[in-house]
């Protein structure tokens, strides 16, 4: 209970205010110091001018930024159709792995093999093998497009990770929920659909957000099999101008998209932690 003496502060409030002001001052001073040090000392290093010309070249950046932004729409497009497919397939694999009836045993094996393989092989390998390999079997156009098969490689890989997260989510729902639902006479399927899954999905949204953010970046792997997305476009510019600034430009564009996403994911995680306590 606060004890306000007329318009004054309690002695504890006074003390805390003083502490706060002190720490803000220290933080501000040290930040300024570091920034000034960087701004003054880094350009003094012998290679700075060359590095700046190569990596932070304003002229090159302004020339290349528009087309980089344009190429980024390819990334967005691939992400937009892959993410939902991953969510659906991931959930299906998670359910397959947890299938209880003996008749569905092959499904469990399949689910386990799927997650083992696609979590075990580096994504870039999967992109190459599926992106080039399957069209190489003789598919006609447009069915052999690298967009289709490259996206499929991403979908298969990410579904494996997403499936495991869903499984963890399903396991995190207390078994008493299942008992209660079954006691009401609901079938296993109804229990899963109406009681377990809604809770499981809610529980794992923060973790899945992290997967989404990783996917946003891995879309660039499709650049190896043809699509001109931002990483490839930056590479073309790098070769054209013999300058790395286009990569810095691409990084900036990525950050503009991923920073809000990571912040949101952190917020969701923090909120979940608070609710659990």
């Amino acid at each position, binding site marked *: 209970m606060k004890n306000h003496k007329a318009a004054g502060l309690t002695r504890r409030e006074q003390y805390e205010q003083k502490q706060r002001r002190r720490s803000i001052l220290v933080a501000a001073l040290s930040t300024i110091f570091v920034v000034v040090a960087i701004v003054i000392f880094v350009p003094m290093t012998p290679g700075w001018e060359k590095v700046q010309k190569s990596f932070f070249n304003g002229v090159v950046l302004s020339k290349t930024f528009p087309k980089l932004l344009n190429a980024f729409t390819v990334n967005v497009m691939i992400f937009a159709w892959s993410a939902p497919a991953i969510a659906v397939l991931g959930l299906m694999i998670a359910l397959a792995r947890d299938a209880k009836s003996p008749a569905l045993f092959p499904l469990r094996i399949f689910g386990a093999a799927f997650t083992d393989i696609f979590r075990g092989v580096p994504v870039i390998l999967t992109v190459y093998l599926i992106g080039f390999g399957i069209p190489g079997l003789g598919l006609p156009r447009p069915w052999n497009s690298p967009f289709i098969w490259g996206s499929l490689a991403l979908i298969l890989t990410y579904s494996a990770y997403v499936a495991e997260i869903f499984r963890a989510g399903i396991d995190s729902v207390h078994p008493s929920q299942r*008992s209660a*639902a079954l*006691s*009401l006479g*609901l079938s296993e399927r109804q229990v899963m659909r*109406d009681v377990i899954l809604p809770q499981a999905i809610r529980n794992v949204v923060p973790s899945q957000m992290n997967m989404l953010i990783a996917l946003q970046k891995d879309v660039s792997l499709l650049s190896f099999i043809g699509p001109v997305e931002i990483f490839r476009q930056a590479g073309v510019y790098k070769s054209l101008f013999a300058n790395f600034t286009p990569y810095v430009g691409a990084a900036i564009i990525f950050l503009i998209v991923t920073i809000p996403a990571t912040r949101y994911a952190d917020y969701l995680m923090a909120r979940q932690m608070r609710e659990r306590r």
Partner: protein
Amino acid sequence: MSKLELHNVVKRFGDNTVCDGINLNVDQGQMVCLIGASGAGKSTLLRCINLLEPIEDGEIFLDGEDISLPGLNPQSVRSKIGMVFQSFNLFPHMTAFENAILAPKRIKNLSKIQLTSEVEMLFERFDLAERMHNYPDQLSGGQQQRVAIVRALAMKPEVMLFDEITSALDPQLVGEVLDVLLQLKDQGMTMVLATHEMQFARQAADKICFLKDGKVVEEGSPKQIFIHPKRVETKAFLSRALK
């Protein structure tokens, strides 16, 4: 034949025999209270009755039908036997009303309007109408447990099982839940309760069964068990429990 009959029911978990040949008869409209120390097998027995756990040996009859046949689809049995749990187990992502209407909606072929009005009446009957559209985390423990009872009742069961439903409640909230049980008894529901509430059992039960180490050590009317217990174990348990 009784409404619910258990013949020599055996349940094992690995090497541990939790129910060791239990015989129990529950007549229509009777309230049977199972008492005993924790681990005596009360909860497990209840879970065997509504087929949440398969039994190793013995039979369970509901209205003369063997519901413990291996391979029997448990769903239809469970619609007839309702269960309420110690930790309420309400579905947190649904309101109280949605909790109650979920199973009837999925299983019974009645129209939505009819179901809604029936469920609403249930909530009213147990003084929960105002709380119907709240989420479980907005309700007190006593309210949650009463909602859990309403949820089980929405399926119009013929038998109700209660697994220590007041053990997790603050003392001042226990009363409102026990009142519901009395209400149900007055309405003629067949009830089996595992409970630590000795006073309540003594006053309300038709039959008391004392379980120890998976066996029914003694059973009888409340007067017989509480006032004239025959077995040593019963006496020992009661003297500890009634302190």
